[in-house]
């Protein structure tokens, strides 16, 4: 072995050539990492809409949405029962439910009821995280749906959902969630979900947000009464709107 080789292996400081080679490798690794990260973001670009864009333009036709007139809810739970019967929801799961908030300081009713369900988000965290596209945003109507046979049961969509709208259904061997009754009703020509039909006090209003003549469009676009969404700060762009009055 020559002295030069020995020097190459045992010099306390690396030679310039070695240093350059090492840095090159570092740059390559960085390049690969950055490339991989960018690549994994590519397909989210089309799905992301700025808030203003979302307000003015609806990307689906029909763009199904629901308005919940919260103060009209009397917690009769008929919507929940209709959902369970229509979609065969097991006793350990739910697709829609009514949350109760106590307001001791209120002058009139001391309780407020807040119906919740899948928000059919325009920027759905569940769809982005699903490794096998088992859950997807329907390209036509924007409903977040399930393809059960592709579901591997990793439950990452449950983790990702900001609205607690998903659960693992043992019988289906897949995640189950509200699909606005697409499978059980809309796809069969019925125009409204079971919960909407069952509600006796017209809390739930369902329709096409892209159609100016629909009730949901008119309620969302009127200016007299405030309209809000839950957890807006998450940025999931939900299609379930809340209002009072």
């Amino acid at each position: 072995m020559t002295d030069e080789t020995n020097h190459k292996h045992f010099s306390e400081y690396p030679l310039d050539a070695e240093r350059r080679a090492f840095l090159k490798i570092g740059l390559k690794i960085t390049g690969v990492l950055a490339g991989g990260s960018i690549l994994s973001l590519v397909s989210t670009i089309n799905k992301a809409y700025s808030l203003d864009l979302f307000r003015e333009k609806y990307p689906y036709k029909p763009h199904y949405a629901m308005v919940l007139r919260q103060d009209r809810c009397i917690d009769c739970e008929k919507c929940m029962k209709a959902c369970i019967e229509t979609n065969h929801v097991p006793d350990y799961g739910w697709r829609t439910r009514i949350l109760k908030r106590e307001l001791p300081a209120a002058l009139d009713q001391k309780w407020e009821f807040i119906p919740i369900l899948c928000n059919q988000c325009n920027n759905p965290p569940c769809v982005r995280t699903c490794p096998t596209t088992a859950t997807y945003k329907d390209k036509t109507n924007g409903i977040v749906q399930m393809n059960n046979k592709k579901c591997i049961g990793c439950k990452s969509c449950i983790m990702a959902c900001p609205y607690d709208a998903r659960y693992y259904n043992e019988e289906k061997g897949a995640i189950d969630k509200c699909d606005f009754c697409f499978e059980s009703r809309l796809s069969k020509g019925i125009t409204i979900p079971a919960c909407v039909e069952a509600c006796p006090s017209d809390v739930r209003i369902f329709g096409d947000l892209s159609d100016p003549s629909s009730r949901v469009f008119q309620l969302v676009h009127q200016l007299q009464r405030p309209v809000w969404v839950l957890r807006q700060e998450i940025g999931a762009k939900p299609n379930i709107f809340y209002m009072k009055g």
Partner: protein
Amino acid sequence: MADSGKERFLPHITSAFQRILSGGWIYLLFVGLFGILLLIGIGAGIHALFIAGSRHAYATSREIPVAILIATYVFFVVASTGLCLVSSLGHVFGLENFLPLAKRCVYLAIITILSGFLVIGLEIENPFRMAIYNVMSPNFSSNIWWMGTLYGFAVVFLTIEFILLFNEAHHHKAVIAGFLGVITEVAANSNLGGVFAMMHGRPYWYGPYFPVYFILSALITGCAFILFFFFLAHKAVNKKPFMETTQTALKAVSKLTLLLMAVMMIFTAWKVLTTSVGSPAAATALSVLTDGPYSFNFWTIEILVGMVIPFILILASRCRNLTVMFIAAVMMIFSLFFTRLDMVVVGQIVPQYFELGVVEYPKLHAYSPSVHEILVVLGGISFCLLAFLLGEKVFSGFADSPQTDIRKEETKDVAGAEELT
């Protein structure tokens, strides 16, 4: 053909088997113990998924859908990335001090990934569908897809590298395989961080912190695993004194550990500080760690046992006393397991509608593992330890590493050269 294959491999298999049997009764006792725990773990997982149903057997729920099993998976695959990265400093990037670590580290990187795969395979509800639809229906925007696919490739590259490392004639190819292994491991690890970091519905996880943190944490875990397993291999399994080159390598690793731990302490401090003034959901999750039900885990296990004491121990040993470094490594590994568990659980512990103040979610969620889950975790850990014990005998303590031999020869040459000068 079959006969020639039999003739070729049978003597190797027989001699490997004999080496295992000659390990002594304590060695065989542990082999048997880990073997039994592994079988029990697999049995518990299969029972949970296919007979009892995970809803009954695992303590996960709609509110906390993933917990200790995913934490164990994260623990192992992050360790694998760390082992791969630290060992690659020598045999891929050419840092002389790290060369003697190559073979055992690559082997450990493989078995830790497989341990992780074993545990996640017993966690995912439909593992068979995963094999099909990961390929047939990939979602390129899913970090889980990238993470799983890249770790899959990493196993392949590392296995090829490991085989090539046994033959000095293929050293160059081994470096290429090692390089590909490192890239896939780091990308997979970063995407694993991304799985949590991209969840904008979970403010505690969301943000660029975790993908970076995971790479740093991987390096620390890798160092701890190296100090732990090299010590065990030499002192307990093979009962051979350390070669000087290996000692030098382990000292280099412990120095690296000190540096990385200092960085980790700064990272952790800033994560705590920034989150404490952030979104209410993230701040509430953090308070669970710093001042709530997980505060013992955080302050005592994560900070004291996992960082402060090992840092002081390694520093006090001046990176020389391998026994002290081993004790530090044991503490770090124990702590890192809980660090993973805390990270996974605390990220989900705040109910999604907590801020609404509704009666359905009056307090934070709670999680404690079920017997099935604990058995699966023990099964995963046992697989890792069993594979380590068997590997030490099957591959003769990785003593005939070409790198080590070359290094020895070169050391002689240098000594000669120095004498000459």
